[in-house]
């Protein structure tokens, strides 16, 4: 009989479909795992709602659980329980090494454009002389920034 620890370990092997350096567990989208009568229920919290990777993630979890010999039941929670604050410390470091500036902690107050314009750390050279080029990027979760010290554009994981 499969255990919850084995399920968590298996889910931790699934890479994010669009940023494969981090796993679904690093991303913090697996909210709960429960086992009952051979069925493994996973509560999954979507990241960005229009992200086409969501269905791929769901199918990957089902495949992993089926490979453990259990019946998968992945529930998609449309509540507000995920934010980028749920990305683990390990996940943030993996993002940085791969050239993505990790998301900053979510501010308590309404986020303003001016807070995003300056001061973020370049994942390549570490300088904070970076500027916002575009709030939007190649996927819903990313903004585009430019480092004025090493003259390298880079992607910033949006804070939501």
């Amino acid at each position, binding site marked *: 009989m499969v255990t919850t620890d084995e399920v968590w370990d298996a889910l931790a092997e699934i890479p994010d479909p669009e940023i494969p350096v981090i796993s679904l567990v690093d991303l913090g989208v697996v909210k709960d795992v429960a086992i009952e009568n051979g069925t493994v229920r996973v509560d999954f919290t*979507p990241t*960005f*709602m*229009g*992200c086409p990777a969501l269905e791929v993630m769901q199918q990957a979890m089902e495949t992993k659980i089926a490979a453990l010999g259990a019946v998968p039941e992945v529930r998609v929670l*449309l*509540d*507000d*329980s*995920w*934010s980028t604050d749920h990305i683990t410390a390990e996940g943030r470091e993996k993002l940085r090494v791969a050239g993505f500036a990790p998301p900053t902690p979510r501010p308590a107050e*309404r*986020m*303003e*454009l001016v807070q*995003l314009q300056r001061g973020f750390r370049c994942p390549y050279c570490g300088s904070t002389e970076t500027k916002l*080029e*575009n*709030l*939007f*990027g*190649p996927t*819903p979760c990313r903004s*585009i920034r430019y480092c004025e010290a090493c003259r390298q554009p880079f992607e910033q994981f*949006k804070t*939501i």
Partner: protein
Amino acid sequence: MSDRTALLLAIADDELILGWRNSEWTGIAPFLEEDVAFSSIAQNEIGHARALYDLAARELGTTADELAFDRTPDEYRSAPLVELRRLEWARTIARHWLYETADEIRIAALKSSEDPEIAGLAAKIDREEAYHRMHAEMWIDRLLATDEGRTRLNEAIDELWPYALGVLDDGLRPGLAARAQERLGRALPDVEPVPRGTHEAELAELWEEMTSVRRSAPAGSRW
């Protein structure tokens, strides 16, 4: 249909149709950053529509795709503001700002709903909408900074204001008027709203295109 489902469908239809309109800039926006921005905003809005349709579909015993694509144009509950086709930059920015501002007022009301599913989904949507609002505000600053920008923005606001009022229910309209007056530094036209429940002719054209693939495939096709 319950009031709850009617509300979910109205918001979902707004987001789907506006998402479609925003996506019309993909490939032809004035410069690359805005091509990316409007394409990404479109993707977010359509993602919100899907989640809202999912909630409505559960009550109606159908699916999000059927709600999005299998109704006739008259059955959509979208506000006429999102149906207009205006591939002109000042009007695009004016609609963007008016819609995002009205939507913020609507979402704030939904976040304090006693229905936990509605409140939770509204809060989740709001996290992404914050970026749309920052983008719209940045453009208002830019247009207000020059005489030509201000003139063109004001013309667009004059044209779109009755439509913007129509996005919201009666009770929320004064809030939108106050926000617009303060931010744009001008009086708004004293006009009747173009209400939800009527449709612009452009919706039928959009619907033809949006549903054409779906209608061309036999029922039950898998992709």
